[in-house]
């Protein structure tokens, strides 16, 4: 079991599936721009009310994920890196949300 853990990481790091090309990077950039444009666009639709929150959360999470996966090449890199980063990220997110809840922010 222990051995497995190690060899797994080892093999992960040496697998390089389909390296991205500048074209990929460009496509990602275009997608990011389009999403940003959508975000700013729907911002002016007042009728959305509170509904804008989930929409924007989803859209900006998508942007965040794309940058992390492609530009920071987490998608192609060792899982351990993703672990370190996502660990901090998820912890920050959950604690942040708990603090807001404790301040009755959602009430």
């Amino acid at each position, binding site marked *: 079991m222990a051995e497995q853990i190690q060899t797994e990481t080892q093999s992960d790091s040496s697998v*390089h599936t389909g390296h991205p090309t500048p074209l990929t990077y460009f496509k990602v950039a275009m997608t990011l721009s389009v999403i940003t444009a959508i975000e*700013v666009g729907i911002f002016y639709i007042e009728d959305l*009310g509170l509904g804008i929150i989930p929409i924007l959360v989803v859209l900006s999470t998508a942007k965040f994920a794309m940058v*992390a996966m492609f530009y920071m090449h987490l998608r192609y890199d*060792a899982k351990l*890196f993703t672990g370190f980063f*996502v660990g901090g990220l998820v912890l*920050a997110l959950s604690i942040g949300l708990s603090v807001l809840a404790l301040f009755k*922010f959602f009430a």
Partner: protein
Amino acid sequence: MAHAEAAAHGGEHEETSTGLNHRKLLMWAFLGSDCMFFGSLIATYVVYFGRSKVGPFPEDVFSIPTTSVSTFVLLMSSMSMVLAYAALNRGSIKGFRIWIASTAIMGMTFLAFQVFEFTDFANHEVHLDCVEIRTNEAAIEELTDYEKTFVDECVEGVDEFEEQHGLTPRTNLFGTTFFTLTGFHGAHVTLGVIWLLSLLFFSFTRGGVTPARSLDVDLAALYWHFVDVVWIVIFTVVYLFGVFPGI
């Protein structure tokens, strides 16, 4: 070639227990840690959201179109950063220089926007068209909460009311938390720009920046992209949610 290939992957085939490079591991651990840093700043901002006792409030000062442009610039800088790294790995030092320079320039553009924004907020003026207010009942509804508190200044004979009510870090909770959060993001960007410019500079020295040492660039790039994703969050949470008129 085999050499460049190895380097292209950030020297992953090192003789370490995991095969991963020390510095790269350090960088990722640092980024995880920095999430907690920005998480705390953002939480502070949100906890105090809407609790300022005096204005100006977000809707008085924010300009979404302006910030959208600077956001766009920062996003594009991430693209040019990754292209710089790709160029270096291809062995094109010239391509690298071009892209890294444009990344730094876009970073500086973003900072310039921020400086502009900060001074603009600090010099914010309350501006009321008193004639309009007197003649058109609905005009008051259009004002922000903060501006409404000045409606009484529109006494007979005043056609236009104008007064400086800037937002500084001392003005209210909003000013304090906003400037601190975006200021620390700006400080990260500044550090990044210095880093990028150093890389550009050393690409002119012998053996300074080479495909074999692309890890140096990789680390700077990770940092840069991280600063970018933090802005993605700030832009949504602070700017878009902050002044969305529908909420």
